[in-house]
């Protein structure tokens, strides 16, 4: 296990060209120059310049270490950020799924409603072909009234006819009676005349 992680570390360090190799080299050079400076036999100015140079390299090392720490912090925070975005997107996906199923149900409902409307329309078309009920009722009423009026008139005419018939009947019967009486009278007159002539003749 240790060997694997070491391999990984070595691989990573070999991959990261730039600063990593530079830092290592710098620290080694610093150590070497420190030991050389401690054991130096040169002039104090040279020693001082070497000391300044070493301070400079030290500062550089500290600087690069600070930089890598900041980068590490930044990476951690980026990771957190990405985690948050990931959970957000997952939530969005589930809510979108829910919305989709809701919409599908809506579509089913709308299709049912549409079908009902179409059935209603189809029936309404057929019903429209038949005439309006109020109109037919009105027509029926008018016809009824007409019928009543006509039967009234018929009754009146019949009554008149009856009356006339009766009047004519009375008239004719009176005429006949008068004729009868006249004939009777004539006959009785003739009889009288014959009797008187027969009496005269004897």
């Amino acid at each position: 296990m240790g060997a694997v992680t070491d391999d990984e570390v070595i691989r990573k360090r070999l991959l990261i060209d730039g600063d990593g190799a530079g830092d290592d080299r710098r620290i080694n050079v610093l150590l070497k120059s420190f030991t050389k400076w401690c054991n130096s036999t040169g002039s104090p100015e040279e020693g001082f310049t070497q000391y300044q140079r070493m301070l400079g390299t030290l500062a550089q090392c500290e600087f690069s270490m600070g930089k890598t720490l900041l980068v590490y912090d930044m990476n951690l925070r980026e990771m957190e950020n990405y985690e948050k975005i990931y959970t957000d997107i997952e939530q969005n996906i589930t809510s979108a799924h829910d919305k989709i199923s809701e919409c599908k149900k809506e579509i089913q409902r709308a299709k049912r409603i549409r079908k009902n409307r179409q059935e209603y329309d189809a029936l309404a078309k057929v019903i429209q072909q038949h005439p309006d009920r109020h109109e037919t009722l009105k027509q029926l009423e008018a016809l009824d009234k007409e019928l009543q009026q006509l039967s009234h008139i018929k009754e009146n005419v019949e009554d008149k006819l009856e009356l006339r018939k009766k009047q004519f009947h009375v008239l004719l019967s009176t005429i006949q009676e008068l004729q009868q009486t006249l004939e009777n009278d004539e006959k009785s007159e003739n009889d009288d005349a014959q009797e008187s002539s027969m009496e005269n003749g004897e």
Partner: protein
Amino acid sequence: MGPVEHLHMSVFSQSFSPCGRFLAAGNNYGEIAVFSLSSALSPDATDLSQTPILTFTAHEGPVFSLFSTDSHLLSAGNGEISAWSWAELIKRNTKAAWTRRPNYKSSLEIPEINAMTVNPTENSLVIGGGDNNIHIMDLESGVFKSVLQGHTDYIHCLSVREREGEILSGGEDGAVRIWDHRTGQSVHCIEVYKYEECARPQYGKWISCLTTESDWMLCGGGPSLSLWHLRSMSPTSIFPLSGCQRQANFYQDMILSVGEGQCVSHCLLGGEVKAQIPCTPHSLNTLALNLNSTDNRVLTVGGSSHQIDVFTNLSYRTFSLSF
């Protein structure tokens, strides 16, 4: 099966399995082919998955009608009905569970059976065929309970209205008869060709497709496909489709209809033709909707070709299964 026979094949009937994963289709050579829909629709489908998993000869004559109950596939051939267990068919075992024939009056001719449907309230099978009569068979006992007589020519199609307990039949004589299943009497008789707006005398008076849904009925054939309101017995919409329709279904708020003509027609209840989707066979005989399963909710059509078109989205043909 040689290439010439392949060319002359017509698919007359289809039926989905109760689980919705398989499709059985019957052709004019008396064979039934079982296709696996789940493998044909899966993402890694190959050409092989569009061929049947099982093909066998079920009858001597053409298989005009197929119907699935909860466990069996019923097929109708020349005068006889066979039942095959779906579980056995999936295991590629082609032994029929039973074979029965209705009592025909004359034994000389064997009339073909054109339509079969099940009346769920009574658990009986209603059969109509070439002898102008409708036979009713009890599914549990296999006894032929009654015969409904009244048509003067052979029967093309049947439909059952469960709520009212009525059986509707349409035949070559142009009449749609409504029978009460208990008394066996013909309650109504609608002669579609006598209505001017529906009649198409140039095609004839026969009724080849009949389907009902609650108070509405679709019927067509020689006369144009028309939507009828059964309570008032009046035609409400006439569909301006040019060919003779052989099968129609209600689906959600539309009407799907197939017949002569190389397309599936989508129509609205008001009488307008919304769309006509082209498909491979030149003339279609059967249309089936797989409502048993949520995954394989497809529409399949078959006709005068050895290919059966599958529509996963009603607007276009996805692929074809091949006999």
